[in-house]
């Protein structure tokens, strides 16, 4: 591999690059889906290639190819530098990427059981059994269960002297049951909705989640929801379960702290952020008990790795401390930009740049953006709530392009009356404005309820990129929330 990386880095400098890096990536994926007792999907996919990123004339260029040959490395490297020079035509100031990062290292996701060593037969059998359990419930129209496994091997080398080899392994699983009646469709998902729950882990992760043992309950809940009353519209107290809170954090905290968004680079697509630079260190994001961190080191987190795709080591960063907004997710370039505005900001990136494969340029992505646990037992929290709604598992989501006004729907909800869970409610929704919502957070459950949920489908960037992010959460309570938006 050294031969190709050295070739690219040398040629980039000869062509006029002041900085260059190359990533060589090989990704294997295995996807299995069982739907209504039939294996609908069993696919083994692989993709490989390389991307060269260069700064020339003070601007960025990037080019990539699937052909791993010396000739193609030469062509692509020259193209990356030429593109950088074209970018310079609109340049306002030279790109700065801060202090040099030079690391020689290797990293591999720690796994107990290599998921690619487990037979397809064992995997299919488990999904078939879960499917059978779910469809044993009268009224279940569709059961769909799936597993996904990813192995990504990547080599990063830069003109600053880095040479880093990583192997990231992911395992994921999920089951969704659908019940249908006249004019109504209801779904229940386990362990999480929208595909699956996923982790940087081996097959032991699949074994930890008892898909078969929970399939029948998912079917029963989906059927029960068909005849459940509609979630009423009112202002009330809201308790969110871990998976829903994970998406709440993802959308209302994770995205607005991406410093490239803050500086406008997503303005025409995903949007910008209400957390503008003047708010850095001096904006009340939530109540005193709200502590949010971003880290790439939590074991099993879907945003866990050794080095980001700029070769910056994995780190842990405070984002919200005692309710106060104190940190962004940064890249080398945006960390330098922020420091020009706030000289006290860290000079180095906190390592959040990731690319969706060899053919994409790294952009700032969430690592594991997590709400730190509080002190409550979930039973005590419900017992302490006189009147409210408990919502579980995301069903729909939407948020404005500065990440202020949000509206979420959940698969399942229960009334809370005088400290007890009451009737099941369907089509539950809630809406709010981000800092007001987090300002009304008055209780967070303790560490025994805390889990890192994987979000394997975060879209951003042009051309589009899908990132895999993690969010540690325990259930939490929010006061004065508008629920039941849909009549």
């Amino acid at each position, binding site marked *: 591999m050294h031969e190709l990386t050295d070739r690219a880095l040398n040629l980039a400098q000869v062509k006029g690059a002041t900085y260059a890096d190359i990533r060589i990536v090989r990704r294997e994926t295995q996807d299995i889906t069982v739907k209504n007792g039939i294996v609908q999907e069993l696919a*083994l*996919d*692989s*993709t490989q290639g390389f991307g060269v990123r260069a700064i020339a004339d003070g601007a960025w260029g990037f080019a990539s*190819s699937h052909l791993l040959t010396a000739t193609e490395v030469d062509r692509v490297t020259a193209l990356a530098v030429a*593109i950088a020079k074209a970018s310079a035509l609109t340049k306002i100031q030279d790109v700065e990427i801060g202090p040099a990062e030079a690391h020689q290292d290797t990293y591999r996701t720690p796994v107990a059981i290599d998921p690619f060593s487990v037979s397809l037969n064992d995997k299919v059998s488990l999904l078939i059994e879960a499917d059978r359990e779910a469809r044993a419930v009268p009224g279940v129209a569709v059961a769909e269960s799936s597993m996904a496994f990813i192995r990504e091997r990547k080599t990063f080398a830069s003109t600053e002297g880095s040479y880093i080899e990583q192997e990231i392994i992911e395992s994921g699983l999920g089951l969704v049951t659908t019940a249908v009646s006249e004019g109504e469709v209801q779904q229940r998902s386990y362990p999480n909705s929208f595909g699956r729950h996923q982790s940087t882990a081996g097959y032991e992760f699949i074994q930890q989640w008892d898909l078969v043992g929970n399939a029948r309950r998912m079917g029963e809940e989906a059927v029960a929801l068909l005849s459940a009353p509609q979630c009423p519209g009112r202002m009330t107290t809201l308790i969110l379960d871990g998976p829903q809170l994970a998406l709440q954090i993802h959308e209302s905290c994770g995205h607005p702290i991406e410093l490239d968004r803050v500086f406008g680079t997503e303005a025409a697509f995903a949007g910008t952020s209400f957390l503008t630079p003047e708010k850095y260190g001096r904006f009340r994001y939530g109540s005193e008990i709200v502590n949010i961190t971003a880290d790439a080191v939590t074991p099993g987190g879907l945003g866990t790795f050794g080095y980001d795709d700029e070769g910056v080591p994995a780190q842990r960063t405070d984002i919200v401390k005692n309710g106060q907004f104190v940190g962004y997710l940064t890249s080398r370039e945006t960390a330098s930009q922020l420091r020009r505005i706030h000289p006290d900001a860290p000079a180095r990136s906190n390592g959040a740049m990731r690319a969706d494969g060899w053919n994409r340029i790294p952009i700032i992505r969430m690592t594991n953006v997590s709400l730190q646990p509080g002190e409550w037992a979930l039973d005590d929290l419900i017992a302490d709530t006189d009147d409210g709604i408990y919502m579980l598992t995301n069903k729909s989501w*939407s948020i404005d392009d500065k990440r202020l006004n949000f509206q979420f729907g959940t698969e399942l909800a229960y009334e809370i009356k005088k400290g007890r869970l009451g009737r099941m409610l369907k089509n539950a929704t809630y809406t709010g*404005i981000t800092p007001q919502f987090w300002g009304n957070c008055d209780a967070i459950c303790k560490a025994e309820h805390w889990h890192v949920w994987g979000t394997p489908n975060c879209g951003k960037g042009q051309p589009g990129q899908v990132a895999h992010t993690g969010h540690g959460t325990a259930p939490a309570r929010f006061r004065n929330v508008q629920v039941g938006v849909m009549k």
Partner: protein
Amino acid sequence: MLGKEKLQKIADRVLALSSADQTEVLILSNDEHLTRFAANAIHQNVSEKDVAVRVRAVLGKKIGVASGNDLSEAALQKVVESAETVACFQQDNPDFNSLPEPRPVQERAAYAAATAAYTPEARARGVATICSASRQKGLEAAGAFSTATAEIMAANSLGVSAYHCSTLAHIVTVIMSDTSSGYAAATAQDVSELDLEAVGRVALDKALRSRNPTEIEPGAYTVILEEAAVADMLSTLGYLGFGALAVQEGRSFMNGRFGQQITGDNITIWDDGCDPRGLAFPFDFEGMPKQHVTLIKNGVAKAVVYDSFTAGREEGKVSTGHSLPAPNTFGPFPLNLFMAPGTATKEEILASTERGIWVTRFHYTNPVHPVKTVLTGMTRDGTFLIENGQIARPLKNLRFTQSILEALNRAEMLGAELKLVKRGWGSSATCAPAAKIHEFQFTGTTEF
């Protein structure tokens, strides 16, 4: 670009390597370039070249899929073997009958040499046009300018062999002041047909006119939705229920309503991959010719789209040419939606509106209740109050929560112009008119 002959050779080689009962090979070759800008300068400028080979192997009623992007003989052989191995581990799929038999596909011209040859410097100069106009007004432009060449070869062991080559050029920009933003976009197969200055002018004008917006109470308002907002609603309908699998599983809004009035009688929606007003793509990912499928005619639910698998599950149905790449658990999908235009210009629609809200486009729309087609999302990049047939003032953005079918039941006027609105993926695009709709439900506001 590899060309038809080379892709055919790869396809033939893959089919020859396979010992499965039936084999399908799908080759997707792309050469894509994108220049992204923000704060009036290019910040990301990328190029990509890839060729992916996807093999579907059929053993009786067992199906396996594998893919790779290494075109060496050994790698192709490995992909074929993987697909066959995977098929061996399958159980029979009783609903699967066969890969499709060949059917004639009409070639559609979709390639422009100017787009294929476009250089990074030319893209940078185009971007500079927009950035310069924005800077002169003290505003900041962001956006992306892309050019791409794509080839597709779909072949199978029953004799299907379809090849298509296309180019695509797309520009999108959002120009911002401290308190406002304006959006414009354009798509063409020939980059020389894009008028970048005009795109910049529209976004700039809207950014200037939407400065210092004020709030309005949420509630039911008459709206004038520009084409991008209507296209967003149509795309959601396509996702929720215009495919046969959704109907077969009982989760489509079309279930039990075929032949019934589900929208106003001025609404006609169809899918057509061969209509030159859209992005021509004459066959699907199984190599089946794309049919014109009328989904809703004069408000009456008529039909949905099929691939070979869903067609095989119903007596007398054939694929309408709407397959996605295998393996596909989502089912067939309409990638080229159209909505019939009306007769009014947007100026005439505006003049006819005593009080209402003008919406440039929506942001982050998502279904809340799929069967009722209830959608929520935000307005974005140019929202205005209409009073006495004129734009009165800019508004802060609003959240809507609204059933699409109910909205299309209250569409009083439709624009005469159909606009091509590119969706996120490949050559998927929707052609939609502007629409004036009564009692559109806004359920919240935001701070900008």
